[in-house]
Protein backbone atom coordinates (compact mmCIF):
# COMPACT_ATOMS: atom_id res chain seq x y z
CA UNK A 1 0.00 0.00 0.00
CA UNK A 2 1.53 3.29 -1.02
CA UNK A 3 -1.15 5.46 0.47
CA UNK A 4 -0.65 9.05 1.52
CA UNK A 5 -0.53 9.74 5.24
CA UNK A 6 -3.50 11.81 6.34
CA UNK A 7 -2.56 12.30 9.98
CA UNK A 8 0.88 11.90 11.47
CA UNK A 9 1.41 12.05 15.23
CA UNK A 10 4.94 12.02 16.66
CA UNK A 11 5.96 11.58 20.31
CA UNK A 12 2.75 13.15 21.57
CA UNK A 13 2.52 13.55 25.34
CA UNK A 14 -0.43 15.29 26.95
CA UNK A 15 -1.07 16.04 30.61
CA UNK A 16 -3.77 17.61 32.73
CA UNK A 17 -2.31 19.13 35.87
CA UNK A 18 1.03 17.45 35.27
CA UNK A 19 -0.48 13.97 35.22
CA UNK A 20 0.26 12.52 31.78
CA UNK A 21 -2.83 10.95 30.22
CA UNK A 22 -1.19 10.29 26.85
CA UNK A 23 2.35 9.07 26.77
CA UNK A 24 4.65 9.30 23.81
CA UNK A 25 2.13 8.47 21.12
CA UNK A 26 3.34 7.79 17.59
CA UNK A 27 0.57 7.25 15.12
CA UNK A 28 0.28 7.32 11.38
CA UNK A 29 -3.18 7.28 9.85
CA UNK A 30 -3.28 6.54 6.12
CA UNK A 31 -5.64 8.41 3.85
CA UNK A 32 -9.00 6.81 3.13
CA UNK A 33 -9.32 4.53 6.13
CA UNK A 34 -12.28 4.18 8.45
CA UNK A 35 -10.48 3.81 11.74
CA UNK A 36 -11.73 2.93 15.21
CA UNK A 37 -9.92 4.12 18.30
CA UNK A 38 -10.64 1.70 21.11
CA UNK A 39 -9.64 1.71 24.75
CA UNK A 40 -11.22 1.75 28.21
CA UNK A 41 -12.81 4.79 29.84
CA UNK A 42 -10.17 7.33 30.70
CA UNK A 43 -7.70 5.84 28.21
CA UNK A 44 -7.19 9.26 26.65
CA UNK A 45 -9.17 8.75 23.43
CA UNK A 46 -10.95 12.11 23.63
CA UNK A 47 -7.72 13.73 24.75
CA UNK A 48 -5.93 12.37 21.68
CA UNK A 49 -8.52 13.86 19.33
CA UNK A 50 -8.54 17.18 21.17
CA UNK A 51 -4.77 17.41 20.94
CA UNK A 52 -4.80 16.75 17.22
CA UNK A 53 -7.41 19.47 16.74
CA UNK A 54 -5.49 22.04 18.74
CA UNK A 55 -8.12 22.17 21.49
CA UNK A 56 -5.54 20.99 24.02
CA UNK A 57 -1.89 21.93 24.04
CA UNK A 58 0.38 18.89 24.30
CA UNK A 59 3.45 19.16 26.52
CA UNK A 60 5.53 17.40 23.89
CA UNK A 61 5.30 16.04 20.39
CA UNK A 62 3.83 17.18 17.13
CA UNK A 63 0.88 16.56 14.85
CA UNK A 64 0.67 17.07 11.14
CA UNK A 65 -2.21 16.87 8.73
CA UNK A 66 -1.08 16.00 5.21
CA UNK A 67 2.41 17.10 6.14
CA UNK A 68 1.53 20.52 7.53
CA UNK A 69 0.56 21.82 10.94
CA UNK A 70 -3.08 21.64 11.98
CA UNK A 71 -3.38 25.44 12.05
CA UNK A 72 -2.65 25.51 8.32
CA UNK A 73 -5.00 22.64 7.52
CA UNK A 74 -8.04 23.44 9.65
CA UNK A 75 -10.34 23.51 6.65
CA UNK A 76 -9.51 19.87 5.90
CA UNK A 77 -10.67 18.62 9.29
CA UNK A 78 -14.13 18.16 10.81
CA UNK A 79 -14.93 17.26 14.40
CA UNK A 80 -17.81 15.56 16.18
CA UNK A 81 -17.29 16.06 19.94
CA UNK A 82 -18.52 13.64 22.58
CA UNK A 83 -22.22 14.39 22.97
CA UNK A 84 -21.98 15.15 26.67
CA UNK A 85 -19.49 17.94 26.06
CA UNK A 86 -22.13 20.56 25.30
CA UNK A 87 -25.17 21.96 27.08
CA UNK A 88 -28.21 20.73 25.15
CA UNK A 89 -30.41 23.24 26.96
CA UNK A 90 -28.66 26.00 25.06
CA UNK A 91 -31.30 28.16 23.35
CA UNK A 92 -30.85 27.22 19.72
CA UNK A 93 -32.33 25.02 17.00
CA UNK A 94 -31.09 21.94 15.16
CA UNK A 95 -30.54 23.93 11.96
CA UNK A 96 -28.56 26.55 13.81
CA UNK A 97 -26.25 23.95 15.35
CA UNK A 98 -25.59 22.43 11.94
CA UNK A 99 -24.86 25.90 10.54
CA UNK A 100 -22.05 26.16 13.10
CA UNK A 101 -20.17 23.72 10.90
CA UNK A 102 -19.89 26.46 8.27
CA UNK A 103 -18.36 29.00 10.64
CA UNK A 104 -14.83 27.75 10.01
CA UNK A 105 -14.93 28.55 6.31
CA UNK A 106 -16.56 31.90 7.04
CA UNK A 107 -13.83 33.07 9.39
CA UNK A 108 -14.19 35.84 11.94
CA UNK A 109 -17.05 38.37 11.84
CA UNK A 110 -18.66 37.20 8.57
CA UNK A 111 -22.20 35.92 9.04
CA UNK A 112 -23.67 32.78 7.50
CA UNK A 113 -25.94 33.50 4.54
CA UNK A 114 -28.21 31.64 2.15
CA UNK A 115 -25.38 29.47 0.82
CA UNK A 116 -24.44 28.25 4.30
CA UNK A 117 -28.07 27.67 5.18
CA UNK A 118 -28.56 25.61 2.05
CA UNK A 119 -25.52 23.47 2.88
CA UNK A 120 -26.82 22.94 6.42
CA UNK A 121 -30.25 21.89 5.15
CA UNK A 122 -28.61 19.39 2.79
CA UNK A 123 -26.58 17.93 5.64
CA UNK A 124 -29.74 17.64 7.75
CA UNK A 125 -31.42 15.85 4.87
CA UNK A 126 -28.46 13.46 4.63
CA UNK A 127 -28.84 12.37 8.24
CA UNK A 128 -32.62 12.25 7.99
CA UNK A 129 -33.20 15.15 10.35
CA UNK A 130 -34.75 17.69 8.00
CA UNK A 131 -38.20 17.48 9.64
CA UNK A 132 -36.61 18.51 12.92
CA UNK A 133 -34.72 21.53 11.65
CA UNK A 134 -36.59 24.05 13.78
CA UNK A 135 -36.70 21.94 16.94
CA UNK A 136 -35.00 23.32 19.97
CA UNK A 137 -32.06 20.99 20.58
CA UNK A 138 -33.12 19.94 24.09
CA UNK A 139 -36.32 18.55 22.57
CA UNK A 140 -34.41 16.07 20.45
CA UNK A 141 -33.74 12.52 21.58
CA UNK A 142 -30.17 11.40 22.25
CA UNK A 143 -29.88 9.69 18.88
CA UNK A 144 -31.26 12.73 17.09
CA UNK A 145 -28.77 14.98 18.85
CA UNK A 146 -26.01 12.68 17.69
CA UNK A 147 -27.26 12.96 14.11
CA UNK A 148 -27.27 16.73 14.39
CA UNK A 149 -23.62 16.61 15.41
CA UNK A 150 -22.88 14.35 12.46
CA UNK A 151 -24.67 16.75 10.09
CA UNK A 152 -22.62 19.59 11.52
CA UNK A 153 -19.42 17.72 10.66
CA UNK A 154 -20.70 16.81 7.18
CA UNK A 155 -21.42 20.45 6.42
CA UNK A 156 -17.74 21.21 7.02
CA UNK A 157 -17.04 19.20 3.87
CA UNK A 158 -13.65 18.11 5.16
CA UNK A 159 -11.12 15.47 4.15
CA UNK A 160 -10.58 14.09 7.62
CA UNK A 161 -13.34 13.48 10.18
CA UNK A 162 -12.73 12.98 13.88
CA UNK A 163 -15.74 11.62 15.73
CA UNK A 164 -15.86 11.06 19.47
CA UNK A 165 -18.34 8.26 20.16
CA UNK A 166 -20.89 9.04 17.46
CA UNK A 167 -22.80 5.88 18.34
CA UNK A 168 -23.28 6.79 21.99
CA UNK A 169 -26.92 6.39 22.96
CA UNK A 170 -28.30 5.69 19.50
CA UNK A 171 -30.64 2.86 18.58
CA UNK A 172 -29.84 0.14 16.04
CA UNK A 173 -31.53 1.93 13.14
CA UNK A 174 -29.65 5.16 13.74
CA UNK A 175 -26.40 3.27 14.18
CA UNK A 176 -26.80 1.67 10.77
CA UNK A 177 -27.74 5.02 9.23
CA UNK A 178 -24.62 6.62 10.72
CA UNK A 179 -22.25 3.83 9.71
CA UNK A 180 -23.56 3.97 6.17
CA UNK A 181 -22.74 7.65 6.04
CA UNK A 182 -19.26 6.94 7.38
CA UNK A 183 -18.73 4.22 4.79
CA UNK A 184 -19.85 6.61 2.07
CA UNK A 185 -17.25 9.09 3.32
CA UNK A 186 -14.56 6.43 3.10
CA UNK A 187 -15.67 5.60 -0.42
CA UNK A 188 -15.09 9.25 -1.32
CA UNK A 189 -11.51 8.72 -0.07
CA UNK A 190 -12.09 10.68 3.13
CA UNK A 191 -10.35 9.59 6.30
CA UNK A 192 -12.67 8.90 9.22
CA UNK A 193 -11.44 8.40 12.77
CA UNK A 194 -14.01 7.21 15.26
CA UNK A 195 -13.78 6.62 18.99
CA UNK A 196 -15.74 3.43 19.40
CA UNK A 197 -16.81 1.41 22.42
CA UNK A 198 -18.63 -1.56 20.98
CA UNK A 199 -15.85 -4.05 20.31
CA UNK A 200 -18.24 -6.55 18.72
CA UNK A 201 -18.89 -4.29 15.76
CA UNK A 202 -15.31 -3.21 15.08
CA UNK A 203 -14.58 -5.84 12.38
CA UNK A 204 -17.89 -5.17 10.68
CA UNK A 205 -17.68 -1.35 10.63
CA UNK A 206 -14.00 -0.50 10.38
CA UNK A 207 -11.00 -1.41 8.29
CA UNK A 208 -8.38 0.15 10.54
CA UNK A 209 -8.01 0.19 14.31
CA UNK A 210 -5.89 1.80 17.00
CA UNK A 211 -5.68 0.38 20.50
CA UNK A 212 -5.05 3.06 23.06
CA UNK A 213 -4.57 3.09 26.79
CA UNK A 214 -2.39 6.03 27.81
CA UNK A 215 0.15 4.53 25.44
CA UNK A 216 -0.50 3.34 21.95
CA UNK A 217 -0.84 -0.43 22.10
CA UNK A 218 -1.20 -1.16 18.40
CA UNK A 219 -2.42 0.33 15.15
CA UNK A 220 -3.09 -1.19 11.76
CA UNK A 221 -5.60 -3.06 9.61
CA UNK A 222 -8.42 -4.65 11.58
CA UNK A 223 -7.89 -8.02 9.92
CA UNK A 224 -4.27 -8.14 11.09
CA UNK A 225 -4.27 -6.73 14.58
CA UNK A 226 -7.80 -6.94 15.98
CA UNK A 227 -7.18 -9.93 18.22
CA UNK A 228 -7.49 -11.11 21.81
CA UNK A 229 -3.86 -10.37 22.48
CA UNK A 230 -4.17 -6.63 21.73
CA UNK A 231 -7.52 -6.45 23.46
CA UNK A 232 -6.05 -7.96 26.58
CA UNK A 233 -3.11 -5.56 26.48
CA UNK A 234 -5.50 -2.64 26.13
CA UNK A 235 -8.22 -3.56 28.57
CA UNK A 236 -6.06 -5.28 31.14
CA UNK A 237 -8.40 -8.16 31.71
CA UNK A 238 -8.15 -11.39 29.80
CA UNK A 239 -10.18 -10.78 26.71
CA UNK A 240 -11.27 -14.16 25.46
CA UNK A 241 -14.53 -12.96 23.99
CA UNK A 242 -15.56 -14.54 20.77
CA UNK A 243 -15.18 -11.78 18.30
CA UNK A 244 -16.23 -13.03 14.94
CA UNK A 245 -14.13 -11.96 12.04
Amino acid sequence: MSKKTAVQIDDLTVAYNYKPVLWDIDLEIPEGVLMAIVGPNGAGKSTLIKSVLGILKPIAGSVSIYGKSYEKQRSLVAYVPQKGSVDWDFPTTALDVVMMGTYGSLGWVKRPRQKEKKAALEALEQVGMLPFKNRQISQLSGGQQQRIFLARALVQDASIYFMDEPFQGVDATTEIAIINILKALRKANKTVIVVHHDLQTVPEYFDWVTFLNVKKIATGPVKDIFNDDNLTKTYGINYKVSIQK
Partner: protein
Amino acid sequence: MSSAQLEIQLIASLVAIACAIPGTFLVLRKMAMISDAISHSILPGIVVGFFITQDLNSPLLIVLAALTGVITVVLVEQIQKTGLVKEDTAIGLVFPALFSIGVIMIAKNANDVHLDVDAVLLGELAFAPFDRLLISGVDVGPKSLWIIGSILVITVALLFAFFKELKLSTFDAGLAASLGFSPVIIHYGLMTVASVTTVGAFDAVGAILVVALMITPAASAYLLTTDLKKMLFLSIFFGVFSAISGYWVAHWLDASIAGSITTILGLLFLVVYLFAPSKGLIAVMYREKQQKIEVSLLTFLLHLKNHTEENERHVNHLREHINWQKIRAKTVVDLALKNNMITIDKHIVSLTEKGDDFTSQAIDYIITNEDAQIEDMKDDFFLFRG
Protein backbone atom coordinates in the same frame (compact mmCIF):
# COMPACT_ATOMS: atom_id res chain seq x y z
CA MET B 1 -41.69 64.93 33.99
CA SER B 2 -38.66 67.10 34.57
CA SER B 3 -35.55 66.76 32.46
CA ALA B 4 -33.67 65.38 35.48
CA GLN B 5 -36.27 62.63 35.82
CA LEU B 6 -35.98 61.86 32.16
CA GLU B 7 -32.21 61.73 32.39
CA ILE B 8 -32.29 59.35 35.33
CA GLN B 9 -34.57 56.96 33.49
CA LEU B 10 -32.45 57.22 30.39
CA ILE B 11 -29.27 56.44 32.31
CA ALA B 12 -30.91 53.53 34.11
CA SER B 13 -32.24 52.14 30.83
CA LEU B 14 -28.89 52.39 29.07
CA VAL B 15 -27.20 50.67 32.02
CA ALA B 16 -29.85 47.95 31.82
CA ILE B 17 -29.17 47.34 28.13
CA ALA B 18 -25.40 47.44 28.58
CA CYS B 19 -25.69 44.88 31.38
CA ALA B 20 -28.21 42.56 29.70
CA ILE B 21 -25.96 41.86 26.72
CA PRO B 22 -22.91 40.41 28.53
CA GLY B 23 -25.30 39.09 31.20
CA THR B 24 -27.07 36.83 28.71
CA PHE B 25 -23.80 35.13 27.82
CA LEU B 26 -22.70 34.92 31.45
CA VAL B 27 -25.92 33.13 32.34
CA LEU B 28 -25.58 30.73 29.41
CA ARG B 29 -21.99 30.02 30.41
CA LYS B 30 -23.15 29.37 33.98
CA MET B 31 -20.89 32.16 35.16
CA ALA B 32 -23.38 34.32 37.06
CA MET B 33 -21.17 34.30 40.13
CA ILE B 34 -18.29 35.82 38.19
CA SER B 35 -20.21 39.07 37.70
CA ASP B 36 -20.65 39.26 41.44
CA ALA B 37 -16.92 38.76 41.90
CA ILE B 38 -16.04 41.38 39.31
CA SER B 39 -18.43 43.93 40.76
CA HIS B 40 -16.78 43.71 44.17
CA SER B 41 -13.17 43.27 43.24
CA ILE B 42 -13.03 46.32 40.99
CA LEU B 43 -13.05 48.42 44.15
CA PRO B 44 -9.25 48.54 44.56
CA GLY B 45 -8.98 49.38 40.86
CA ILE B 46 -11.37 52.24 41.32
CA VAL B 47 -9.50 53.51 44.37
CA VAL B 48 -6.11 53.38 42.68
CA GLY B 49 -7.58 54.96 39.57
CA PHE B 50 -9.09 57.69 41.70
CA PHE B 51 -5.79 58.41 43.46
CA ILE B 52 -4.14 58.86 40.10
CA THR B 53 -6.85 60.79 38.27
CA GLN B 54 -8.77 62.46 41.13
CA ASP B 55 -11.84 62.05 38.91
CA LEU B 56 -14.40 59.30 39.31
CA ASN B 57 -15.41 59.61 35.67
CA SER B 58 -12.01 59.54 34.09
CA PRO B 59 -11.54 56.97 31.30
CA LEU B 60 -8.22 55.95 32.87
CA LEU B 61 -10.04 55.03 36.06
CA ILE B 62 -12.46 52.91 34.05
CA VAL B 63 -9.59 51.14 32.32
CA LEU B 64 -7.72 50.48 35.58
CA ALA B 65 -10.79 49.21 37.37
CA ALA B 66 -11.85 47.04 34.45
CA LEU B 67 -8.35 45.58 34.49
CA THR B 68 -8.90 44.59 38.12
CA GLY B 69 -12.07 42.84 36.99
CA VAL B 70 -10.18 40.82 34.40
CA ILE B 71 -7.42 40.07 36.92
CA THR B 72 -10.13 38.68 39.21
CA VAL B 73 -11.21 36.27 36.50
CA VAL B 74 -7.60 35.21 35.86
CA LEU B 75 -6.97 34.65 39.58
CA VAL B 76 -10.15 32.61 39.94
CA GLU B 77 -9.14 30.45 37.00
CA GLN B 78 -5.59 29.98 38.25
CA ILE B 79 -6.79 28.87 41.68
CA GLN B 80 -9.31 26.57 40.05
CA LYS B 81 -6.62 25.10 37.78
CA THR B 82 -4.69 23.80 40.75
CA GLY B 83 -7.54 21.34 41.11
CA LEU B 84 -7.64 21.89 44.86
CA VAL B 85 -10.92 23.82 44.97
CA LYS B 86 -14.01 24.22 42.83
CA GLU B 87 -14.91 27.35 40.90
CA ASP B 88 -17.34 28.80 43.44
CA THR B 89 -14.77 28.35 46.19
CA ALA B 90 -12.13 30.03 44.05
CA ILE B 91 -14.48 32.97 43.47
CA GLY B 92 -15.19 33.12 47.18
CA LEU B 93 -11.46 33.27 47.87
CA VAL B 94 -10.60 35.99 45.38
CA PHE B 95 -13.18 38.71 45.53
CA PRO B 96 -13.46 39.30 49.29
CA ALA B 97 -9.68 39.64 49.35
CA LEU B 98 -9.62 42.22 46.57
CA PHE B 99 -12.69 44.00 47.91
CA SER B 100 -11.21 44.34 51.37
CA ILE B 101 -7.99 45.71 49.94
CA GLY B 102 -10.17 48.38 48.35
CA VAL B 103 -11.99 49.05 51.62
CA ILE B 104 -8.71 49.41 53.52
CA MET B 105 -7.36 51.75 50.88
CA ILE B 106 -10.44 53.94 51.21
CA ALA B 107 -10.39 53.88 55.02
CA LYS B 108 -6.70 54.85 55.11
CA ASN B 109 -7.34 57.84 52.92
CA ALA B 110 -10.92 58.62 53.85
CA ASN B 111 -10.16 62.18 54.90
CA ASP B 112 -9.06 63.57 51.60
CA VAL B 113 -10.97 61.27 49.27
CA HIS B 114 -14.51 61.80 48.16
CA LEU B 115 -15.31 58.11 47.84
CA ASP B 116 -17.05 55.71 50.14
CA VAL B 117 -17.94 52.05 50.12
CA ASP B 118 -21.67 52.70 50.18
CA ALA B 119 -21.44 54.82 47.07
CA VAL B 120 -19.57 52.07 45.26
CA LEU B 121 -21.96 49.32 46.26
CA LEU B 122 -25.23 51.17 46.00
CA GLY B 123 -24.50 54.17 43.81
CA GLU B 124 -26.91 57.04 43.70
CA LEU B 125 -28.90 57.34 40.57
CA ALA B 126 -30.79 60.34 41.90
CA PHE B 127 -27.61 62.45 41.85
CA ALA B 128 -26.48 61.35 38.40
CA PRO B 129 -28.06 64.31 36.55
CA PHE B 130 -26.16 66.84 38.69
CA ASP B 131 -22.74 65.83 37.43
CA ARG B 132 -22.73 67.47 34.00
CA LEU B 133 -20.33 67.08 31.14
CA LEU B 134 -19.20 70.47 29.86
CA ILE B 135 -17.54 70.74 26.47
CA SER B 136 -15.93 74.19 26.08
CA GLY B 137 -18.38 75.54 28.56
CA VAL B 138 -21.47 74.03 26.96
CA ASP B 139 -23.58 71.61 28.99
CA VAL B 140 -24.05 68.47 26.89
CA GLY B 141 -25.75 66.29 29.52
CA PRO B 142 -24.94 64.20 32.57
CA LYS B 143 -21.48 62.62 32.60
CA SER B 144 -22.82 59.16 33.48
CA LEU B 145 -25.08 59.28 30.45
CA TRP B 146 -22.08 59.81 28.19
CA ILE B 147 -20.00 57.17 29.91
CA ILE B 148 -22.60 54.46 29.85
CA GLY B 149 -23.73 55.53 26.37
CA SER B 150 -20.20 55.07 25.02
CA ILE B 151 -19.85 51.71 26.70
CA LEU B 152 -23.18 50.62 25.28
CA VAL B 153 -22.22 51.65 21.75
CA ILE B 154 -19.02 49.60 22.01
CA THR B 155 -20.85 46.62 23.50
CA VAL B 156 -23.49 46.62 20.78
CA ALA B 157 -20.85 46.96 18.07
CA LEU B 158 -18.93 44.00 19.53
CA LEU B 159 -22.11 41.97 19.79
CA PHE B 160 -22.94 42.58 16.13
CA ALA B 161 -19.41 41.79 15.00
CA PHE B 162 -18.88 38.68 17.10
CA PHE B 163 -22.35 37.27 17.67
CA LYS B 164 -21.52 34.10 15.75
CA GLU B 165 -18.24 33.60 17.62
CA LEU B 166 -19.87 34.23 21.00
CA LYS B 167 -22.65 31.81 20.28
CA LEU B 168 -20.33 29.07 19.03
CA SER B 169 -17.80 29.32 21.84
CA THR B 170 -20.54 29.45 24.46
CA PHE B 171 -22.31 26.40 23.07
CA ASP B 172 -19.31 24.33 22.05
CA ALA B 173 -15.89 25.66 23.01
CA GLY B 174 -14.23 22.56 21.60
CA LEU B 175 -15.57 23.08 18.10
CA ALA B 176 -14.80 26.79 18.35
CA ALA B 177 -11.18 25.98 19.14
CA SER B 178 -10.90 23.40 16.38
CA LEU B 179 -12.27 25.89 13.84
CA GLY B 180 -9.73 28.48 14.91
CA PHE B 181 -11.97 30.81 16.93
CA SER B 182 -9.93 31.01 20.08
CA PRO B 183 -12.40 30.47 22.94
CA VAL B 184 -9.83 32.03 25.28
CA ILE B 185 -9.86 35.33 23.41
CA ILE B 186 -13.65 35.34 23.29
CA HIS B 187 -13.84 34.46 26.97
CA TYR B 188 -11.56 37.32 27.99
CA GLY B 189 -13.29 39.64 25.55
CA LEU B 190 -16.57 38.92 27.29
CA MET B 191 -14.96 39.33 30.72
CA THR B 192 -13.52 42.68 29.65
CA VAL B 193 -16.90 43.91 28.44
CA ALA B 194 -18.51 42.76 31.69
CA SER B 195 -15.80 44.51 33.72
CA VAL B 196 -15.93 47.76 31.74
CA THR B 197 -19.73 47.82 31.98
CA THR B 198 -19.60 47.20 35.71
CA VAL B 199 -17.10 50.00 36.24
CA GLY B 200 -18.88 52.40 33.93
CA ALA B 201 -22.17 51.81 35.69
CA PHE B 202 -21.08 51.61 39.30
CA ASP B 203 -20.97 55.37 39.82
CA ALA B 204 -24.53 55.81 38.64
CA VAL B 205 -26.23 52.67 39.89
CA GLY B 206 -23.78 50.88 42.21
CA ALA B 207 -22.19 47.48 41.97
CA ILE B 208 -25.13 45.52 43.38
CA LEU B 209 -27.61 46.82 40.84
CA VAL B 210 -25.10 46.06 38.09
CA VAL B 211 -25.03 42.42 39.14
CA ALA B 212 -28.82 42.31 39.35
CA LEU B 213 -29.14 43.90 35.91
CA MET B 214 -26.67 41.45 34.39
CA ILE B 215 -28.08 38.25 35.78
CA THR B 216 -31.78 38.61 36.60
CA PRO B 217 -33.15 39.71 33.20
CA ALA B 218 -31.10 37.04 31.42
CA ALA B 219 -32.14 34.34 33.87
CA SER B 220 -35.80 35.32 33.40
CA ALA B 221 -35.46 35.38 29.61
CA TYR B 222 -33.78 31.97 29.67
CA LEU B 223 -36.94 30.47 31.13
CA LEU B 224 -39.11 31.94 28.42
CA THR B 225 -37.41 31.26 25.13
CA THR B 226 -35.42 28.70 23.19
CA ASP B 227 -33.86 31.19 20.80
CA LEU B 228 -30.67 33.05 21.63
CA LYS B 229 -31.63 36.26 19.80
CA LYS B 230 -35.03 36.34 21.50
CA MET B 231 -33.29 35.70 24.80
CA LEU B 232 -31.10 38.77 24.22
CA PHE B 233 -34.09 40.95 23.29
CA LEU B 234 -36.14 39.71 26.23
CA SER B 235 -33.25 40.34 28.65
CA ILE B 236 -32.94 43.86 27.34
CA PHE B 237 -36.68 44.38 27.58
CA PHE B 238 -36.85 43.08 31.15
CA GLY B 239 -33.87 45.23 32.13
CA VAL B 240 -35.32 48.43 30.68
CA PHE B 241 -38.79 47.66 32.02
CA SER B 242 -37.42 47.18 35.54
CA ALA B 243 -35.27 50.28 35.26
CA ILE B 244 -38.17 52.54 34.33
CA SER B 245 -40.82 51.01 36.55
CA GLY B 246 -38.29 50.83 39.40
CA TYR B 247 -37.67 54.51 38.99
CA TRP B 248 -41.37 55.36 39.34
CA VAL B 249 -41.87 53.01 42.27
CA ALA B 250 -38.99 54.75 44.01
CA HIS B 251 -40.51 58.10 43.09
CA TRP B 252 -43.91 57.26 44.61
CA LEU B 253 -42.53 55.55 47.67
CA ASP B 254 -39.72 58.04 48.09
CA ALA B 255 -37.29 55.11 48.25
CA SER B 256 -33.88 54.29 46.78
CA ILE B 257 -34.02 53.97 43.01
CA ALA B 258 -31.42 51.20 42.82
CA GLY B 259 -33.27 49.32 45.57
CA SER B 260 -36.60 49.63 43.77
CA ILE B 261 -35.15 48.50 40.45
CA THR B 262 -33.55 45.47 42.12
CA THR B 263 -36.86 44.63 43.81
CA ILE B 264 -38.77 44.83 40.53
CA LEU B 265 -36.14 42.60 38.91
CA GLY B 266 -36.58 40.07 41.68
CA LEU B 267 -40.37 40.12 41.42
CA LEU B 268 -40.19 39.81 37.67
CA PHE B 269 -38.00 36.75 37.97
CA LEU B 270 -40.35 35.25 40.53
CA VAL B 271 -43.34 35.68 38.24
CA VAL B 272 -41.48 34.18 35.29
CA TYR B 273 -40.13 31.36 37.43
CA LEU B 274 -43.64 30.46 38.53
CA PHE B 275 -45.59 31.02 35.33
CA ALA B 276 -43.21 30.43 32.42
CA PRO B 277 -45.17 28.29 29.93
CA SER B 278 -42.85 25.30 29.68
CA LYS B 279 -39.96 25.76 32.11
CA GLY B 280 -41.92 27.48 34.89
CA LEU B 281 -42.50 25.80 38.23
CA ILE B 282 -46.26 25.52 37.79
CA ALA B 283 -45.97 24.16 34.26
CA VAL B 284 -43.43 21.61 35.42
CA MET B 285 -45.60 20.53 38.34
CA TYR B 286 -48.64 20.32 36.10
CA ARG B 287 -46.72 18.18 33.64
CA GLU B 288 -45.51 15.88 36.37
CA LYS B 289 -49.04 15.43 37.60
CA GLN B 290 -50.26 14.66 34.09
CA GLN B 291 -47.48 12.16 33.65
CA LYS B 292 -48.49 10.44 36.87
CA ILE B 293 -52.04 10.15 35.64
CA GLU B 294 -50.77 8.83 32.31
CA VAL B 295 -48.80 6.13 34.06
CA SER B 296 -51.83 5.23 36.18
CA LEU B 297 -53.97 5.05 33.08
CA LEU B 298 -51.49 2.76 31.45
CA THR B 299 -51.30 0.50 34.51
CA PHE B 300 -55.09 0.35 34.49
CA LEU B 301 -55.29 -0.53 30.80
CA LEU B 302 -52.55 -3.14 31.13
CA HIS B 303 -54.47 -4.78 33.93
CA LEU B 304 -57.57 -4.93 31.75
CA LYS B 305 -55.62 -6.39 28.89
CA ASN B 306 -54.08 -9.04 31.08
CA HIS B 307 -57.34 -10.17 32.66
CA THR B 308 -60.17 -11.51 30.60
CA GLU B 309 -62.06 -12.96 33.57
CA GLU B 310 -65.01 -10.79 34.54
CA ASN B 311 -64.45 -10.71 38.29
CA GLU B 312 -61.06 -9.07 37.71
CA ARG B 313 -62.72 -6.36 35.69
CA HIS B 314 -65.47 -5.35 38.06
CA VAL B 315 -65.33 -1.66 38.88
CA ASN B 316 -65.15 -2.24 42.62
CA HIS B 317 -62.57 -4.93 42.30
CA LEU B 318 -60.36 -2.69 40.21
CA ARG B 319 -60.39 -0.12 42.96
CA GLU B 320 -59.27 -2.67 45.49
CA HIS B 321 -56.94 -4.50 43.24
CA ILE B 322 -54.93 -1.65 41.85
CA ASN B 323 -55.24 -0.04 45.23
CA TRP B 324 -55.74 3.55 44.25
CA GLN B 325 -57.43 6.19 46.23
CA LYS B 326 -60.95 6.68 44.96
CA ILE B 327 -60.28 10.07 43.46
CA ARG B 328 -57.38 8.94 41.35
CA ALA B 329 -59.30 5.88 40.21
CA LYS B 330 -62.16 8.07 39.13
CA THR B 331 -59.86 10.44 37.22
CA VAL B 332 -58.29 7.55 35.40
CA VAL B 333 -61.56 5.78 34.59
CA ASP B 334 -63.09 9.05 33.39
CA LEU B 335 -60.10 9.75 31.23
CA ALA B 336 -60.19 6.29 29.69
CA LEU B 337 -63.90 6.68 29.03
CA LYS B 338 -63.46 10.09 27.52
CA ASN B 339 -60.84 8.77 25.12
CA ASN B 340 -63.04 5.81 24.16
CA MET B 341 -60.54 3.33 25.49
CA ILE B 342 -62.92 1.42 27.73
CA THR B 343 -66.60 0.67 28.04
CA ILE B 344 -68.42 -0.05 31.28
CA ASP B 345 -71.30 -2.45 31.06
CA LYS B 346 -73.05 -3.48 34.29
CA HIS B 347 -70.00 -2.49 36.33
CA ILE B 348 -67.75 -4.63 34.16
CA VAL B 349 -64.96 -2.72 32.45
CA SER B 350 -63.72 -3.82 29.03
CA LEU B 351 -61.17 -2.42 26.62
CA THR B 352 -62.49 -1.03 23.38
CA GLU B 353 -60.67 -1.77 20.16
CA LYS B 354 -58.94 1.58 20.37
CA GLY B 355 -57.97 0.95 23.98
CA ASP B 356 -56.59 -2.45 23.06
CA ASP B 357 -54.54 -1.03 20.20
CA PHE B 358 -53.26 1.75 22.34
CA THR B 359 -52.20 -0.64 25.07
CA SER B 360 -50.31 -2.92 22.67
CA GLN B 361 -48.51 0.05 21.21
CA ALA B 362 -47.64 1.31 24.65
CA ILE B 363 -46.23 -2.08 25.67
CA ASP B 364 -44.21 -2.12 22.50
CA TYR B 365 -42.90 1.33 23.24
CA ILE B 366 -41.98 0.47 26.81
CA ILE B 367 -40.13 -2.67 25.75
CA THR B 368 -38.21 -1.32 22.78
CA ASN B 369 -37.92 2.27 23.90
CA GLU B 370 -36.96 3.36 20.42
CA ASP B 371 -36.61 7.01 19.58
CA ALA B 372 -38.39 6.73 16.29
CA GLN B 373 -41.37 5.16 17.94
CA ILE B 374 -41.79 7.99 20.42
CA GLU B 375 -42.13 10.34 17.47
CA ASP B 376 -44.78 8.14 15.88
CA MET B 377 -46.74 7.78 19.08
CA LYS B 378 -46.66 11.36 20.24
CA ASP B 379 -50.02 11.98 18.58
CA ASP B 380 -52.07 9.36 20.33
CA PHE B 381 -49.91 8.15 23.17
CA PHE B 382 -49.23 11.32 25.05
CA LEU B 383 -52.76 12.33 25.69
CA PHE B 384 -51.91 15.57 27.36
CA ARG B 385 -48.72 16.62 25.73
CA GLY B 386 -48.43 18.20 22.33
